[in-house]
């Protein structure tokens, strides 16, 4: 099928899409957007998290055919030009990134959390990020980064 959808604000098309392939595959292999990572393809790790119509989902669990006519925002869509999103900036500053594989999903999940709760408690942060696994950092620096981004957001 020919798939038409809006990705990061831009109307995109992809041809010869198998409607049962995942949105993650479409983004990475057909649209040149490798930001969202493929680590499990079964919804367990969250590294493929994107916004679909404004709601964070695992893009590996969305069928390409379901996205026709819908809107997707990936980690690539969060920065404004060269200026990183405050969540991205906080991850960099706090050293919340090691191999980086989990990072795109964590950035999107954190971005969503801070849209909904500007000063989340630690339990709220843990709950919101429970679907994102990181095998490197031990999570402490990730929590630091989320708190920093939240503080800056609250101050701005």
């Amino acid at each position, binding site marked *: 099928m020919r798939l038409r959808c809006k990705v990061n604000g831009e109307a995109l098309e992809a041809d010869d899409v198998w409607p*049962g392939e*995942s949105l993650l595959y479409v983004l990475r292999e057909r649209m040149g957007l490798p930001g969202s990572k493929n680590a499990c393809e*079964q*919804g367990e790790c969250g590294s493929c998290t994107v916004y679909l119509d404004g*709601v964070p989902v*695992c893009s590996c669990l969305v*069928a390409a055919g379901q996205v026709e006519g819908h809107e997707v925002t990936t980690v690539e869509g969060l920065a404004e030009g060269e200026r990183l999103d405050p969540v991205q900036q906080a991850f960099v500053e706090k050293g919340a990134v090691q191999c980086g594989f989990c990072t795109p999903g964590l950035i999107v999940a954190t971005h969503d959390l801070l849209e909904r709760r500007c000063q989340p408690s630690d339990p709220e942060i843990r709950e919101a990020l*429970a*679907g994102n696994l990181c095998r490197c950092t031990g999570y402490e620096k990730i929590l630091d980064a989320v708190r920093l981004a939240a503080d800056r957001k609250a101050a701005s």
Partner: protein
Amino acid sequence: MEFFKPATWSEALAIKAEHPDATPIAGGTDIMVELNFDVRRPGALLDLTEIAELREWSAVGDGFRVGSGVSYARIIEELGASLPGLAMAARTVGSPQIRNRGTVGGNLGAASPAGDSHPPLLAGAADIEVASVRGTRRIPAAEFYKGVKRNAMEPDELIAAFHIAAADGPQQFAKIGTRNAMVIAVCSFGLALHPSTRTVGTGVGSAAPTPRRASDAETFLAGELEWDSPGPLRDSVLVRFGELVAQAASPIDDVRGTADYRRHALSVMARRTLGWAWDSYRRN
């Protein structure tokens, strides 16, 4: 592979009648795992996510009609106060991403004995509304689950909604797993106290080929509870209730736990959830 994307419910039913083999896909959180890993290659997918009415719920009589496509996240947000048992179960499903996308309709379609919606639907005596071009019927949850991953639907039918009464008393849900997030139940238990009818509802998950009620435990407890002058529960009542719940199960040994462990855990969950529910009834 064909991909059907009906915009209306009647269109979806017509497609399902003509292509009974078409596999419905809602949130995709079960189906897509199977597609990604090549466990399944359906000839056709029937996408239900464009059908607005499946994502709607409404208050009807003393309860609700909840569209099969309402996500767990929305059940928690929008219906949590009226359907606390189901909302508690929904909070334990997967992760935020899974709850944003996964639906009760999909849980019912998959009919896994471990599905977390099932115990509260059983305890709350929900009806499942299924439909085809031939018409609509309501199946009580207790008759919906037919075997491991089998339900009572005909090949041309789709799940439209479930009907469930608003809680008229305390409800509880408990689930055993290795951690808090992202875990399939080793076993689970749902409890609903119904002071208005002086009855009790239960649902046992992941401890038999299908989710099921613990009917003897319900009858026993309804007879023992002192609804009018609620004092502390006697230990003997708690223990007997736990035993009867465990007896209702017919668990197996598998990678997640042994049959013995499941029976034991069920009796503990039954006692605890009853303690919590009764305390809350006494306070009100």
